[in-house]
């Protein structure tokens, strides 16, 4: 690779990274607060399907099942619960704690201390579309999404710079 080509590649990478950085510079979320959310689970969806919270919010989540036993596995937050129809209790476990006894709770409580989009999924086989039963927890500011979109735009900008540079040749 010639020095000139290294220079061009490095320049393109810098433009892409600049786009990603610009996209990640989302404004900070509103002050933390407590959020109480009532949720239902049915084959094969949660309602509400998407939860929007801010970083630092304390989320208190009550879930009831409208049909069969469902699960609630929230990735990255170490929460896994069973939702039993007609029961006011959720059966809570923490996957990282081996041998832990099931805890009966009325609501799932966690602090949204990570930002981004996280999926919650059914963890109890509940029917044919069980693997696709999922919802989304979006914790603002979602810097990864901003960085991703920024990187896409940065890539396009880098391509434009490469395309319009004055060098002869088109390779």
């Amino acid at each position, binding site marked *: 690779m010639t020095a000139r080509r290294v220079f061009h590649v490095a320049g393109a990478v810098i433009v*892409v990274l600049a786009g990603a950085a610009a996209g990640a510079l989302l404004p900070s979320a509103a002050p933390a607060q407590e959020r109480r959310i009532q949720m239902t689970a*049915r*084959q*094969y*969806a*949660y*309602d509400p*399907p*998407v939860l929007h919270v801010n970083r630092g919010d304390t989320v208190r989540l009550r879930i009831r099942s409208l049909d069969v036993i469902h699960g609630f*596995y929230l*990735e*990255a937050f170490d929460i896994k619960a069973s939702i039993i129809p007609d029961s006011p209790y959720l059966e809570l476990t923490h*996957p990282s704690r081996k041998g832990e006894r099931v805890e009966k709770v009325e609501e799932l409580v966690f602090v949204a201390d990570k930002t*981004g*989009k*996280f*999926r919650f*999924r059914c*963890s109890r*086989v509940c*029917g*044919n*579309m*069980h*693997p*696709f*039963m*999922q*919802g*989304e927890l979006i914790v603002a500011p*979602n810097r*990864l*999404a901003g*960085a*991703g*979109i920024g*990187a*896409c*735009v940065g*890539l*396009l900008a880098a*391509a*434009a710079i*490469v*395309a*319009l*540079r004055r060098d002869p040749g*088109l*390779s």
Partner: protein
Amino acid sequence: MNAPQPSGRIDLLRTVPGLKWLLTRRWFQFAVVLPNLAFFYLFIIAGAFGSPVGSRNIIIIFVWILWWFLLIAVMVPFASRVWCTVCPIPFFGEWYQRRALVGVRVGRPGVGRNRMWGFNRHWPRALSNIWLQNLGFLLLCTFSVPLLTRPIVSAIVLGGLVLLATVLHVIYRQRAFCRYVCPIGGFLSLYSMCSMVEVRARNRETCDECTDKSCLAGGVTGWGCPWHVYPSKLDRNNYCGLCMECLKSCTHDNMTIRARPFGSETALKSYDEAWKAFIMIGLALAYSVALLGPWGIIKDWANPTESGKWGGFALYAGALWTLTLAIVPAAFYAAARLGRRLAGEPGMTMKEAFLGFSGVLVPLGLAAWIAFSIPLILVNGSYVLNVISDPLGRGWDLLGTAHTPWMPFHPEYASFLQLAVLLTGLFYALRSGWRFAGERYGDRPAAARAVAPVAILSTAVAAGFLWMFVG
């Protein structure tokens, strides 16, 4: 024979010890298909007689979770159509034609110099394209939820493909089924263009001077190309099924397998290929919404046999077909047309622009499918442990892993992987568009103007997928 390697290519038969010996053994393909055949029929039996619960049946977990991920994220990018090398679906049909599992027959009646059984009819010229594959795949995908979640439906479809392949092998010459009908073959042909390996002639002059053309007509050491292609003229991966027959039949030792950079070819040459690209990216989008999205109503519509919402299904199916067959092509047509106008030169016809710029969807579509598949394997991969110990979901525990709890493998990192994959796909898409424009327009500003609308559209598509997965 000693022609220089094209740039960025490595002749694997000359650099990997033992590879040439292995691939030129007559028993090679039979040896790799045979175990696959055994598994394939185990899957069909499990689908027909095993648990109706998808996550407890080996056919669903191995075919739609494990195989699919390996196919789209590993085999296609790194090894082209290697799946076609090991595919068990045409096994019986090909055996019927050849009446040989390993050896080669010569004589009449046959195809070329090879003695072959069956009617050996030519495939109809009007169907000598991938439109059947396009529509067949789209039709299967319209019913994807029953197919992906119900073992019996998977067993019927896979068994039906074996039956269809066998019948077509009896009627038509060689691998007409694989080339023109197989719904899997259609997208393999498209995305294998990005792959990092290729079968090619080492030296074109040797082929030009060759008089016996045994790669095409067959001979005593190998069957003529079963894929209806002329191996010595191969310049794209699309329709090479990596059966390795040309390596065996070439009397000049002129065919080889080369490693090459990812994304080396993206040129689409006909409308059927372009529409395959549109269908695939449209389906990736639709699946990402319907299967990986949080919206229950769309899942109900996609799953009418259980939800009973046939009106919603009609809407879902209509949207799927309209998106893939009309909206995505229209968007790319508009972008290509605008680019051609902005370039201000008659560098190419509208058809050339449309087909050429559609090639950007080859790497971008592959990236979208890989990104879609990442959470599937991370979340559902642990079911493999259950079903290898209890393939039929009947309460067996052959390996002691049947009751392993469901353990998603760090699904929270899927977003980072999806981001990286989509950016890589966008990079290759932009490069593909730029190279095509560069070939058609002599000067840099005109080429930049020509590619600009397609580049912006590709970026928007990538950003849209990103937003769905991460945003």
